[in-house]
């Protein structure tokens, strides 16, 4: 075997703390290395051309590139060696940037370490075999989980592209957070007016199957062939019969039911349609508040319903959907501010969240768009907005910026002035983050045209005073303490991962960060992909986002799915396990530990032997570890390859 080694400088990223020339020289001493050189940027056009040229000139059979992490450029270089005429799997990378040059200061030690990492890559490559990807057919249906604006966009784009779409939403209606908003920044256009038609499109699109009041129960399978079980929770109403007339809600006696949609400002009935524009416009019963379901007597809705749709005996139903890809658009939830004692910890009725204020502003909200204090229903005059409640605060484990609060706070001050021209808004802020198109101008308008007083500083305490509230804070620009008396305090609560996000991630086998937001495949290059093939992300489930970004991601995720489905067959990763028939004794230990059911026991000339279903095998290698005699080996992570790496690092 002829091996070529290419040691990348990565500009000064590597060459700054690793003697790349010395590493290349050391590499020449490793077995079967016939060519080694250093190169400025291995991934650049001339860098790749250099590799191709060397493959041809030195008749190389395999290539090692020592550069960045394989998560960055392994795919790039595999294509390079393929263009040079080699099998794409006759390639190995040594990670001498993230694992060496960026973390060590001692150049000698780094150089030595880099050379050893090249050595193990060479030893592994020597034992690589040429692999060819197999093919399998794909099911060209897509599931979108989450019916907020990102999920709606993704579902519509996929459906318009001709795909069958299954849209799953946890709440009784799609629409997500955006459906609760009154207006949107920076255009101050009506949220329902732009979202409503899109929601209707979902209901009317023949390619879309909509499951609301439903959650994903389990996910099996792999890219192209997922089996997803969806739990359709009991609505206690037969939706095939319900016409959405609302007669049931009008007659329901349980009128003090907490109103989830209205953020618990105001009350609703036990049977209800959450809001007038709900899609599907179907009633559902809140079992905890329903007199019939809790106490066994009532049935007012049964009498009221002209369609006979009420079914108190309805139970959860599990449906199974076969899809080839999944778009996760589960959004975010709002930070629970009650852990801030200085803001009253939830004890003061007129200290509310920004989303509650949004419902007060909304014409379809509990006050029909009149701003009223929850405590006494009076119109407020002085309103204090406090930003970064649950954002950029390490002490409560929320060090990140939620991104959209500066903007919606400015919007709310503008709307406040529109609603109550005599009112005065005050905004306590840390920094203004307004890096979108027209965003900073919008903030200036709030300040200059609408007279919102912006105070740079934090609030130390909110104290009730004579039926109003005293807000004590600091003005860091003036270096002074500020005290403002206000009628209403609106907390710009930050975004946090949706409840249950980690549990869903585990079902989908995708990863999530410390805060529960899902991890994208690459922070720059794979913003809507995950590391699990066939699963894509859109919207705030990946991190807090405003509406335009969520819509853009919904569209991006849809285009990724359409791209994936543009092929009839997918190539399977050939780095899977295979069984040596000579060595297998049929003990089935591999089968018992395979997480994917990818191993079956077959009869071969009267003997029991294990056999790998290549398209099901995901390449984890658990079987190889379980086989005492080493009869089942994971390609490119064989026992001998790992042993060779150990021997290279520890030559006794």
């Amino acid at each position, binding site marked *: 075997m002829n091996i070529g080694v290419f040691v990348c400088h990565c500009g000064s990223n590597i060459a700054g703390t690793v003697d790349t020339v010395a590493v290349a020289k050391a590499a020449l001493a490793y077995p079967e290395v016939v060519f080694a050189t250093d190169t400025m940027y291995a991934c650049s056009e001339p860098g790749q051309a250099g590799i191709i040229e060397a493959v041809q000139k030195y008749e190389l059979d395999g290539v090692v590139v020592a550069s960045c992490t394989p998560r960055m450029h392994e795919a790039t270089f595999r294509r390079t060696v393929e263009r040079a005429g080699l099998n794409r799997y006759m390639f190995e990378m040594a990670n001498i940037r993230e694992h060496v040059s960026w973390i060590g200061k001692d150049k000698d030690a780094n150089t030595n370490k880099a050379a050893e990492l090249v050595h193990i890559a060479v030893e592994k490559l020597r034992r690589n075999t040429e692999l060819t990807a197999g093919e399998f057919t794909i099911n060209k249906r897509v599931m979108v989980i989450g019916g907020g604006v990102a999920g709606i966009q993704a579902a519509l784009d996929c459906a318009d592209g001709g795909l069958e779409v299954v849209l799953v939403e946890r709440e009784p209606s799609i629409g997500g957070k955006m459906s609760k908003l009154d207006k949107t920044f920076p255009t101050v256009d009506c949220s329902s007016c732009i979202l409503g038609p899109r929601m209707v499109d979902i209901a009317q699109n023949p390619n879309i199957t909509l499951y609301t009041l439903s959650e994903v129960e389990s996910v099996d399978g792999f890219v192209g062939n997922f089996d997803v079980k969806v739990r359709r929770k009991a609505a206690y109403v037969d939706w095939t019969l319900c016409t959405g007339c609302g007669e049931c809600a009008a007659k329901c006696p349980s009128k003090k039911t907490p109103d989830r949609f209205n953020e618990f400002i105001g009350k609703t009935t036990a049977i209800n349609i959450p809001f007038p524009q709900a899609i599907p416009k179907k009633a559902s019963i809140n079992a905890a508040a329903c007199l019939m379901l809790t106490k066994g007597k009532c049935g007012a809705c049964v009498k009221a319903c002209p369609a006979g749709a009420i079914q108190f005996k309805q139970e959860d139903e599990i449906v199974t959907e076969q899809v080839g890809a999944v778009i996760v658009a589960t959004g975010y939830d709002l930070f629970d501010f009650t852990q801030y004692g200085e803001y009253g910890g939830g004890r003061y009725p007129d200290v509310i969240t920004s989303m509650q204020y949004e419902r007060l502003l909304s014409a379809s909200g509990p006050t029909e768009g009149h701003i009223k204090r929850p405590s006494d229903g009076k119109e407020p005059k002085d309103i204090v907005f406090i930003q970064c409640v649950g954002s950029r605060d390490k002490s409560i484990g929320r060090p990140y910026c939620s991104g959209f609060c500066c903007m919606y706070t400015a919007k709310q001050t503008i709307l406040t002035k529109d609603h109550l021209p005599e009112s005065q808004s005050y905004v306590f802020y840390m920094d203004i983050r307004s890096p979108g198109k027209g965003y900073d101008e919008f903030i200036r308008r709030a300040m200059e045209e609408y007279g919102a007083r912006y105070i740079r500083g934090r609030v130390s305490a909110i104290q*009730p005073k004579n039926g109003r509230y005293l807000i004590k804070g600091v003005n860091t620009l003036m270096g002074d303490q500020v005290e403002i008396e206000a009628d209403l305090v609106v907390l710009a609560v930050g975004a946090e991962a949706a409840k249950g996000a980690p549990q869903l991630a585990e079902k989908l086998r995708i990863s999530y960060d410390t805060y529960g937001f899902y991890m994208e495949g690459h922070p720059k290059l794979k913003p809507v992909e995950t590391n699990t093939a066939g699963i894509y992300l859109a919207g705030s489930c990946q991190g807090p986002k405003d509406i335009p970004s969520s819509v853009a991601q919904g569209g991006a995720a849809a285009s990724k799915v359409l791209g994936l489905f543009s092929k009839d067959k997918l190539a399977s990763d050939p780095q899977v396990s295979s069984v040596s028939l000579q060595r297998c004794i049929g003990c089935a230990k591999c089968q018992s530990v395979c997480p994917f059911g990818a191993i079956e026991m077959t009869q071969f000339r009267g003997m029991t032997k294990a056999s790998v279903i290549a398209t099901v095998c995901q390449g984890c290698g658990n079987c190889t570890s379980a086989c005492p005699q080493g009869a089942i080996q994971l390609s490119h992570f064989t026992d001998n390859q790992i042993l060779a790496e150990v021997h290279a690092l520890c030559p006794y």
Partner: protein
Amino acid sequence: MSRRYAYYPGCSGQGTSREYDSSTRAMCQELGFELIDIPDWNCCGSTPAHAVDHLLSASLVARNLAIAEDMDVEGIVTPCPSCLKNLKTSQHRMLRPEFHQEVQRVLGRAVRADLPIKSVLQVLVEDRGIGWIAQQATAPLTGLKVVPYYGCIMNRPPDVMRFDDPENPMALDNLLTAIGAEVLPFALKTDCCGASLGTTRRDVVARLSGRVLDAAAAAGADAIVTACPLCQMNLDMRQAQINKANGSSHRLPVFYYSQLIMLATGQQGERVGLDKLCVSPFSLLESLGPQAGEVRS
């Protein structure tokens, strides 16, 4: 079961808050806590000057700690939040080995700095429990409307003090409720009374303490209850000054919680020290009726 603690009285207890010291000692005796004075204790190091020299401040604390470490006690208690803060802060700083060594060098002896340090209020609440204290209240203070005033440092900084909620502490609320008083919601319970500017900027004291008095009166309280000698001094001794500066006319007695516990457990006399209060509480207590009235000497 008696529990033994090293008692650090603090300098206020020798002067402006003798009644806090005496009522605390009496209360602990009645409730089964054995307080043993740290022999030859010295300043806790919490004067404004010490804020600029952590080493000196901590060394003063460390001497007290070292003496207490030779005693057979469960920990150190002090009635004064200001002493408590400096004892605990210095102990916290000594978690850094270099600083710890430096303090030992200054001190000329070893100090472990690992004895638990708590306020008397904290051991009362944690060791005995509110329910048990309620049972001891044989002369409950029924009808007495109070607001509890914790002051700014009893629970802060939370990482060091590790007692109760820093924004909305409830220990005094619960304790006073347990002995029969009516505890009113009080938003200013952890506000600053201005004590650190008590001698240099009396106008600030008048403003800050004035707000506490205003809020207490607005809430409908008959009296304020404190656990801090400095808060008590500002609210009680300076109440006339504050009234003058702010044009108010408050006459709110400012009790130490220990005094009220003594009353509620049927104790009286010099140890309770009600006569040491500047704003006399006697007419208020008399108005409560015979149970509470009996306690007067």
